[in-house]
């Protein structure tokens, strides 16, 4: 009886903490201090800017994709991005997808960390990116393209593809530069499936973007030109250690746009176009995000930390 009571207390305690965390997230999303994030419009490419320390950014993205030889799909993911330090950002993703006339499934999660090795701004600014992925073959968010990823991989029915779970480590070198209001970013990447027999796979992402205005206007406004950032990104695979090169690889070109609202919300929209027959013909992506300022401190207070 005592043991049962003990277990019950532990469960109740954990539930209480879980509910507090959910409440904090909800309150944070709705009532967080107004912080206008200057978010980049990229969806695949990364610039060298990290999350402000102590802030949590909650993001949701959708990707609608056309599928040759199969059903079109809607893939989606949620991101929780936390600024641990000014030089370290950690991020948790949950992925899912709906393939039309098939099913809606959860396809796995990713845990990403970005580290800024240099303290100051330089001509080119590097950030080291390390990610652990535990996703099934049915994952279709196309957050990056690597190795010999091709559109036909996504034609496999969900019921079959979701049976194979991959554990992968992904490394990127995020190189980025800001010049006269423009951001230029280059991200080479290498991925290793943790199966010993699997080869290293390579890919790239490139991006350029600029706000519509470089000076802030005096008044608070939703539609001021400085709130809009436009750009373009390109990404694709570069083969693997067994078969490097561009053959049997897919590549995409996508205009990108972001609307940073003074209320702290950011909306992104990006139509993407496949550049060869191995690519999906069209990918329409959109996303919404909200930054919760001082989330770390709120968390500390809620869970009994010092004031």
């Amino acid at each position, binding site marked *: 009886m005592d043991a049962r009571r003990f277990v019950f207390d532990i469960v109740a305690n954990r539930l209480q903490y879980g509910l507090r965390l959910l409440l904090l997230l909800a309150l944070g999303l709705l009532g967080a*201090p*107004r*912080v*206008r994030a*200057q978010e*980049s419009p990229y969806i695949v490419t990364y*610039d060298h*800017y*990290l999350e*402000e*320390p*102590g*802030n949590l950014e909650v993001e949701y993205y959708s990707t609608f994709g056309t599928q040759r030889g199969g059903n079109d799909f809607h893939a989606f993911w949620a991101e*929780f991005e*936390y*600024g*641990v*330090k*000014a*030089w370290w950002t*950690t991020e*948790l993703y949950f992925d899912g997808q709906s393939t039309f006339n098939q099913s809606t499934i*959860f396809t*796995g*999660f990713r*845990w990403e960390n970005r580290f*800024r090795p240099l*303290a*100051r*701004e330089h001509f080119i600014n590097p950030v080291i990116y390390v990610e*652990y992925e*535990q996703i*099934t073959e049915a994952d279709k968010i196309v957050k990056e393209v690597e190795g010999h990823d091709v559109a036909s991989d996504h034609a496999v029915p969900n019921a079959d593809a*979701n*049976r194979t*779970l991959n554990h992968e480590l992904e490394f990127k070198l995020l190189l980025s530069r*800001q010049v*006269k*209001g423009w*951001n230029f970013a280059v991200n080479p990447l290498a991925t290793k499936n943790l199966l010993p027999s699997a080869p290293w796979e390579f890919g790239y992402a490139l991006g350029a973007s600029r*706000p519509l205005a*470089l*000076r*802030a*206007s*005096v*008044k*608070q406004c939703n539609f001021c030109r*400085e709130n809009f950032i436009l750009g373009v990104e390109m990404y694709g695979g570069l083969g693997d250690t067994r078969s490097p090169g561009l053959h049997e690889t897919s590549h995409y070109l996508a205009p990108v746009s972001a609307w940073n609202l*003074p209320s702290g919300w950011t909306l992104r929209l990006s139509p993407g176009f496949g550049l060869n027959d191995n690519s999906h013909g069209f990918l329409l992506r959109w996303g919404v995000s909200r930054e919760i*300022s*001082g989330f*770390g*401190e709120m*968390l*500390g207070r809620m869970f009994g*930390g*010092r004031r």
Partner: protein
Amino acid sequence: MKSGLTRRISAGIALASFGILVTVSASIAFGRQAAGPAKAKQFHAALLEVPAKDRARPNPMEGEADSVAAGGKLFEQHCAECHGKKAEGTRRAPSLLRQEVQQATPGAIFWVLTNGVVRRGMPVWSKLPEPERWQIVTFVKSLKAGQSSNPGAESNSEIR
């Protein structure tokens, strides 16, 4: 097969969630260790590290009527969450009303804003276009030295 997959995914999620919790907890804990006036001094000391060439850069927005107001808006959006609405300082970052800041050249403030003080918790702000950064500098320089900074917050200023 499927239940095994679900189990492995659940275990993975639990592991990742645990990792995130540890990370956040460590961040809060280390942030507390780093608190104190000594760190606030280190923060202001960044102004002394500015290269002479950058320190001497003039503010191209100086004297422009709208710059202070626009800079104030930008300050509220990007800086006030840490430095306080009136730049008086909070637990997270020190006051900008202090002499060290107010007596610094516009070029020095612009340099610190651009490069951040990354190891002491201030992120780089070069993502703001250069004219917007100068607008913020104009606003900061328009604040008068000696205005009521928040001494309590200053001494507890938590630089992560």
